[in-house]
């Protein structure tokens, strides 16, 4: 259970640069009356970020990344997405997605 001092220093520095971007917007923006165009932009940010996180993980692979038209991830994503659209159940979607991915792994 040892922690080397140079590792601790590195972790502290990583912690500071990671915490900054997490904190500054809350520090400076929360409770402020933001301009309407900025609020409109922020309103679209969650949909944009989620989509930007999901799409590349479905159709690209490897480093450097290459395009993949038909991956198991994408094949499972389509019915999982439809299930989410139909039921709007987060827990159900997670279980269905996991099951389908597991099934594709067995038969694929």
């Amino acid at each position, binding site marked *: 259970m040892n922690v080397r001092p140079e590792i601790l220093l*590195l972790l502290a520095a*990583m912690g500071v640069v990671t915490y900054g971007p997490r904190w500054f917007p809350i520090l400076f923006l929360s409770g402020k009356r933001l301009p309407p*165009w900025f609020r409109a932009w922020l*309103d679209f940010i969650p949909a944009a970020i989620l989509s930007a996180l999901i799409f590349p993980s479905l159709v690209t692979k490897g480093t450097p990344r290459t395009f993949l038209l038909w991956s198991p991830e994408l094949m499972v994503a389509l019915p999982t997405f439809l299930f989410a659209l139909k039921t709007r*159940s987060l827990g159900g979607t997670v279980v269905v997605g996991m099951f*389908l991915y597991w099934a594709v792994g067995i038969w694929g």
Partner: protein
Amino acid sequence: MFHLFRQGLKAAWPICLGYLPIGLAFGVIAGNFGLSVAEIGLMSLIVFAGSSQFIAVSMLHAGAGLLPVVTTTFVVNLRHLLMSSALADRLGKVSRPLGALFAYGITDESFAVNTARFQDEDWDYGRALLVNHISNAAWIVSTMLGGAFGRFIPEGGLGIDYALTAMFLCLLVYQLRNRLHVLVAIVSGILAVLFALWLPGNAYVILASVPAAAAGAALRNTLAREKKGPPVEDPS
């Protein structure tokens, strides 16, 4: 109090489930690269950002020094700036220490869950904070377990590797509130794929979502003006 905790747990369990395989994998790799279990736990506590932790340990293993690792960490985690901005708008007025405490737990996953909850339930600071910290605890524990016992754990059991993707898919569905949101999501997704193919790292998250969200806001403004309504409809 117990009721509050149960609500937080109910919202956070998909995150915990998703963190388990990733945390275990991280623990195994970090352990193989020479980090002690205590160092792994401290990194998960102090940094608490999955992908940047993977990148940091592989850079360390390749002999990189402090400055390159810290700079890379900064760039990889810069996307939290956007999430924190969007959450600041929904949190409303919070005291400085409470805001600082909340900021610590902002990750892709807690951001996604909390924005969905803020949108259509009576979600508040306390519940959102619980989601952050339950996820944080799950991350710390699973990375340390990976470091300590990772070699004995079978890989890819029960499709658990797909838990976070499935969770993100459902949370995306929650965000598709009207046609403009669908359009923004499609544009952002396509841009993200193009940037991901073009550039290494995860800059694609910011590069795709900033212009896509701006296009959505601009389009909404134009449509509102055509209808001669107020210039911009106030988002919920």
